[in-house]
């Protein structure tokens, strides 16, 4: 069976699931309008030698930043809230209306999963993509929500929020995974972020 990827991943194909460590995956795609992934550089320096040669010295891979523009409308953490996620940890989220959060010294870890697929039966970025459907998925683990910038300049409350994750954990375990399937195999669901 020959499967074919689309010419490009376009409108209506992206899903974004965000989970605090130990929490549920919340689908943000209904409230997000743009995704910008600034992958950390894998740069190097070169050292010139006496005869004009170059010694290549790799520099450690940089951190990756994922920036979203979207329209969160409340502080409901079972929905697309960014303010409680920014200011405090999931253990302290307010779930009783009216909702409130104040600045704190606590910071949470998050997992950001982005999936592109034309399979409309898939409604969350962490879901399994069945055989017969093409998909591309990026998984960023142990991210911090480092920036939340609300603006109301065009008579609409738009929020630009940014996650940042290092490429590796302390023990060298990778934090970044990319996956794709051409439809000849199932792309498995993503395990919980625990």
């Amino acid at each position, binding site marked *: 069976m020959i499967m074919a990827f689309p010419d490009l991943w376009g409108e209506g194909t992206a899903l974004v699931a965000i989970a605090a460590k130990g929490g549920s995956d919340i*689908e943000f795609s209904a409230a997000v309008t743009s995704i910008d992934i600034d992958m950390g550089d894998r740069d190097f320096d070169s050292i010139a030698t006496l005869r004009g040669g170059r010694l290549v010295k790799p520099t450690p891979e940089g951190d990756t930043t994922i920036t979203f523009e979207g329209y969160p409308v409340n502080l409901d953490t079972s*929905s697309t809230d960014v303010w409680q996620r920014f200011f405090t940890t999931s253990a302290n989220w307010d779930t009783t209306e009216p909702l409130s959060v104040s600045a704190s010294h606590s910071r949470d870890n998050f997992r950001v999963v982005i999936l592109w697929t034309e399979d409309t039966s898939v*409604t969350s970025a*962490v879901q399994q993509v069945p055989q017969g459907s093409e998909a591309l998925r990026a998984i960023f683990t142990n991210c911090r929500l480092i920036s939340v910038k609300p603006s109301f300049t065009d008579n609409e409350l738009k929020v630009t929020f940014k996650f940042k994750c290092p490429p590796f954990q302390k023990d060298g375990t990778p934090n970044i995974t990319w996956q794709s399937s051409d439809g000849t195999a199932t792309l498995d669901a993503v395990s919980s972020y625990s």
Partner: protein
Amino acid sequence: MALIKKQLDENRMEVTNSGDAVVTIYEFRGTKFEKPITLKPGQSAVIRIKQTDEIIEKTVSMKDTVKGRRKSPVKRKKGE
């Protein structure tokens, strides 16, 4: 406007997504039996929450069944 969790018994919990976003929860979270369950807004599901060793115990106890039907309990005589 939240995930409403209702403990049905020691093994099961009913989760209702009363928010406006799609939410994925996990049955047997963190175990090899883990299974994601995706809830659209307004949907609810009953998830099992027992730990791994208890599931194994339950699997073993299936020996007590005959063709899918549980044997009737052994009647004990008075005084036993």
